[in-house]
């Protein structure tokens, strides 16, 4: 197939496994909550999320025990995602605004901030509980 070099490639691909990352369920279930309940009971299996490399910059974690409220992290945050609570000497991070540059974790003198592996963060409410770290 000199003029259509794609055809042999296509016919070969027809018998190979697809390259796409699998969704949690192969096809959209008619009811997602029912499907998840089934998974909970162990009647159905979900494809796990793809693994992430070492030092991946996922959802931020905050350990307030050592925090002194120095506000350096807020100073370097490009997205203004960090709110400094002056009275409590704590910070509050809005993950929906975070751009995952990890600059706050670099500058934090107490090592209170770190990036986790979590990346499935979609939510309809940008102020949902799991999207505010404090």
């Amino acid at each position, binding site marked *: 197939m000199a003029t259509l070099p794609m055809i042999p490639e*296509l016919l070969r*691909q027809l018998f190979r496994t*697809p*390259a796409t990352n699998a969704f949690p369920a192969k096809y959209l279930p008619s009811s997602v909550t029912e499907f998840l309940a089934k998974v909970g009971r162990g009647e159905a299996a979900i494809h796990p999320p793809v693994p992430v490399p070492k030092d991946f910059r996922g959802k931020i974690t905050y350990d307030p025990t050592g925090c002194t409220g120095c506000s350096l992290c807020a100073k370097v945050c490009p997205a203004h995602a960090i709110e400094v609570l002056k009275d409590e000497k704590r910070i509050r991070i809005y993950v929906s605004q975070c751009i995952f540059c990890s600059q706050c974790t670099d500058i934090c003198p107490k090592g209170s901030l770190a990036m986790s592996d979590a990346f499935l963060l979609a939510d309809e409410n940008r102020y949902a509980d799991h999207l505010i770290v404090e």
Partner: protein
Amino acid sequence: MTLIETILAAVGGTVAMAVFGIVAGLFFLGVDRKFAALMQARIGPPLRQPFIDAAKLMRKENIVPENAIPWIFNGAPILALASAITILLYLPVGSIMPVLGGAGDLILVMYLLTIPALAMVVGGFASGSPYATVGAQREMVILIAYELPLAIAIIAIAWRLSMAGIADPFSLTTIAANPVWGVVGPVGAVGLLILLGILAWVTPAELSRIPFDAQEAETELAGGLLVEYSGKNFALFYLAQAVKTIVMAALAVALFLPWNLSSFVAMAPAVAVAADFVFFLAKVLLVVFFSISLIRVSMARFRINQIVSIYWVWLGLAGFVGLALVMIDAILAGV
């Protein structure tokens, strides 16, 4: 059979064929999407996806653009679906003979094939959108372009059958009952292979699939003549597309692959009908894969002037070569 029984049989047959055409058509659209997905290394939607799509579109609101002509705009989809189902009434399905039919129905089918396309053209012009207008113009050009090779392919077969002394060669029932491959010699077989190839290349244009989908051209015209259609009207066009898929495949099967299992293996009449039906679906699957799925994933969309020159010059010439070979074969056979 009394007149009432005849009418009842025709009505019952029509309803049955309409249901069959829509269900099988949607199923084969799903098969086509699955084939395409697998060849593109994707998982693809489930086979039932076209049914879900059609059901969802049916529940959606119809939007008629402000500068459209409403009665034409709403009438075109019904005309497209109705005419597509009408063609199906003339086509044999396995060993089930056509509901309607008679002398010369092959010519009728050729004319009927243009009606769904014309309905889309009318609907496109009535939409009052520049994209739809450009799409409708292109559809007309494509319609004229693929008519020549299609006519050559169909007429060559009927002509060869008539030369072999078979009565009523322009009837699809006759063509299906007398496989043309059994009539021709080796030279004619080569000619028929060329004609089969031509039919495989006309099918994507008839169904407006890549590479001949200039009239819809998603990236150029955003859907072309269907750009303004939504909801139920769009669902009707979608169903017409599904029925047309079955029609084109059934036509190719009737012309070139008309064999039935029951003619090779002896079996009870009821079993034979079922076996032939399944065999028919398998043949349709073959046609869908080679002339729709494989072609549409393996090349880029052509420009409208390239489509015309491909059909008129290259496929037209190929058609005449095929026709000439079939004629030489007839002379060699001494008829």
